[in-house]
């Protein structure tokens, strides 16, 4: 039984796999995504994290100082996850 409008056909999956493979093989033929050599952010973190944040651990400096707002979001996500678990596993009867 084949439905006319369904996208879950073997033909569609094969085309998708071929396309994704071509996209991931593009760097092998010289085409790159963006221009990594033009960004200096990584070298800036390595050079300045110790003097600017005072932390010997560069990862900690990035997580808690340069990207502190991201960490706040992660903590909020964890908080909301616990709220969801508390809602699902609540006791409806004693």
């Amino acid at each position: 039984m084949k439905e006319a409008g369904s996208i879950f056909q073997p033909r569609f999956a094969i085309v998708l796999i071929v396309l994704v493979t071509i996209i991931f093989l593009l760097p092998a033929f010289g085409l790159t995504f963006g221009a990594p050599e033009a960004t200096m952010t990584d070298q800036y973190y390595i050079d300045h994290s110790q003097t600017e944040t005072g932390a010997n651990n560069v990862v900690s400096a990035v997580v808690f100082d340069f990207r502190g707002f991201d960490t706040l979001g992660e903590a909020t996500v964890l908080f909301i996850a616990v709220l969801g678990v508390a809602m699902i596993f609540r006791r409806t009867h004693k």
Partner: protein
Amino acid sequence: MTIGLIVKTAGRLLVPFIFIFGFYIVAHGHLTPGGGFQGGAVIATGVALILVCYYYRECMEKFIPVSSFKLVESAGLMLFICTALAGLVVASGFLFNWLNATGGLFGNAVAYGINPGDLYTAGIIPILNFAIGIEVFGALSAVLMFMFAGLKEPTQEEDDAKAPVQNMHKGKKGVRK
């Protein structure tokens, strides 16, 4: 089946060391690999060990109830947000490292280059590490507590009541043979 005495005693003995190791990972987050998330997860492992040894109801009676874990988690997030907002009030912006190299709390100046590290450096980073550690510890423990609360747990009376019946059943079978 209830958990035996050996497992309970071993878990009770192991848990303080797990807590100390997790606290070490949190406190040295700005010097060594690790940090708030990892240390909080290690501390929550100790809570999981306690929960496996003692079930939910005995934990509630002997140790701390689940509402206190919710309180701990909220306190960690509030500490994080308050530290970040203090940067907005005291210095130039939200999450600004306003304690770094001022000589105050965690305010020693750090030596540039490869050095063994001073625990009393890095400004607000250790405080944020502690906040995240408290938050993750409370969150994972609260999740475990909520999941264990739904488990059907056998009581000691049921355990004692079942054993002679099983023995009798076995005896009957032996007689029939």
